[in-house]
């Protein structure tokens, strides 16, 4: 390799290390040309100041790209981003429940964890002992599908790995299985907005995965979106704090103490923890609200703000992420109606949005599309010596 070839390779490595790929795709050869033209004929390695200048300039370009969002296809990027963020968010929600209820009332047996009966230690064993074939047991299967952490874990893993088709099929099957089992056992669905949110989130995940097949896959969709990662990390930190703070206020309950409290509704008899004893704040005192709900609300608000102000792609992703929660809120409003909707009406109300989402996803799957897209990764024409 000639001295010039070595120098060029070194510059190329620097460019690829510092600059965003989207920017390099258009300017790599051009900048290399200028670097080589400006280089000393005997020069073999990039100069220190030159390297520092490249680092600093790349940083400026990165910040500018984050601020203005230079994606040629912002919706495709937003769909790819949502495809990763949505399963992460669902997993976080399950973790909140798990940590929060678990820290308060005990984490239960593995079977309780599987069916998502957080905070009800021994619930599964008790129901199963009463009647292995009852509706209660059927509801455990549906509970495992929506409230339990396992489907959320599987979906998050598939989505992060970028196995788009497998993730989409799984995301579509979970709510369909839930509906099938629930309808067969005659449950009324409208009473559970939280379940509805989960069903819509899975449906939407299938849709966004199928809608943008050429966008960056899996965790790569997060790679150049530090603001989106920051937002997720903020929520995760809040979730961790929210559940993790309980032991500071209260002692975790033994199953016996839990049963006693539930039987007598003596919530005030939950044993005090370190901070409660220190400040004398009771169970319903301001300190509890401030440190649980208050912390979580503040953290979510910060995350939303980060997503909203950071880039057009993040704003689009946020709009998509809000869909299942907005639909769930509508279900919640309907659940307040007195007297409640009759069973079939409630079921139709819950199922209809999900069917619309899943049918749209299927339609997107069947639409033929062009193989190439500007967002597809491209390879430099002449990567070696010239």
């Amino acid at each position: 390799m000639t001295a010039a070839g070595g120098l060029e390779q070194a510059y190329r490595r620097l460019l690829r290390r510092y600059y965003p790929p989207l920017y390099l795709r258009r300017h790599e050869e051009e900048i290399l040309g200028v670097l080589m033209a400006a280089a000393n004929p005997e020069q073999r390695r990039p100069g220190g100041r030159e390297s520092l200048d490249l680092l600093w300039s790349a940083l400026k370009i990165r910040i500018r790209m984050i601020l203005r969002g230079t994606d040629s296809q912002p919706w495709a990027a937003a769909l790819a981003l949502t495809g990763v963020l949505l399963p992460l968010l669902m997993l976080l929600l399950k973790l909140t429940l798990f940590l929060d209820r678990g820290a308060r009332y005990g984490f239960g047996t593995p079977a309780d964890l599987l069916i998502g009966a957080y905070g009800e230690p021994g619930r599964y064993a008790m129901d199963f002992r009463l009647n292995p074939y009852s509706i209660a047991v059927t509801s455990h299967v549906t509970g495992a599908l929506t409230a339990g952490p396992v489907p959320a874990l599987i979906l998050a893993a598939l989505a992060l790995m970028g196995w788009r088709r497998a993730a989409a099929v799984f995301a579509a099957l979970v709510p369909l299985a839930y509906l099938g089992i629930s309808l067969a056992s005659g449950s009324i669905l409208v009473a559970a907005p939280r379940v509805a949110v989960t069903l819509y989130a899975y449906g939407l995940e299938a849709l966004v995965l199928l809608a943008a097949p050429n966008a960056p896959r899996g965790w790569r969709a997060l790679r150049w979106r530090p603001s989106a990662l920051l937002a997720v990390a903020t929520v995760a930190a809040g979730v961790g704090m929210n559940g993790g703070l309980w032991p500071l206020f209260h002692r975790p309950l033994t199953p016996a103490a839990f049963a006693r409290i539930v039987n007598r509704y003596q919530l005030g008899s939950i044993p005090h923890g370190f901070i409660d004893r220190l400040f004398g704040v009771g169970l319903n005192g301001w300190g509890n609200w401030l440190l649980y709900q208050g912390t979580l609300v503040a953290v979510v608000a910060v995350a939303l703000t980060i997503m909203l102000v950071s880039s057009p792609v993040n704003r689009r992703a946020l709009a998509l992420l809000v869909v299942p929660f907005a639909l769930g809120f509508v279900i919640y409003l309907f659940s307040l109606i007195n007297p409640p909707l009759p069973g079939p009406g409630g079921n139709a109300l819950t199922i209809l949005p999900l069917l619309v989402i899943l049918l749209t996803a299927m339609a997107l799957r069947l639409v033929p599309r062009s193989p190439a897209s500007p967002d597809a990764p491209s390879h430099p024409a002449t990567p070696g010596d010239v």
Partner: protein
Amino acid sequence: MSDRPLQEPTFLLLTSLAEGPQHGYGIMTDVERMSDGRVRLRAGTLYAALDRLVTEGLVEEDREEVVEGRLRRYYRLTPHGGDRLAAEVARLQHNAALAAKRLRGRVIGGLA
């Protein structure tokens, strides 16, 4: 935004494009020559500046050429960029004239 004075490197970069389209290395050497070697744009700085000016609509891409196996992209001033540079020239001329006039007054006052 258009009221803010241009930084010298930006001013020289726009000046370099005032006569006609230039490619990156052309701008770099031109700026160095115009400033008698005082202002040296490094490649990173140059392209960060071009990226910013293109975003602001002062500069746009003109054409591409391949010379000795190297890609050269030419940049040109947009009409808005021309106006901005002209406004900056007027501002500098006004300031320079004002300063020169006051200096003359000071010399005469000092002698009297």
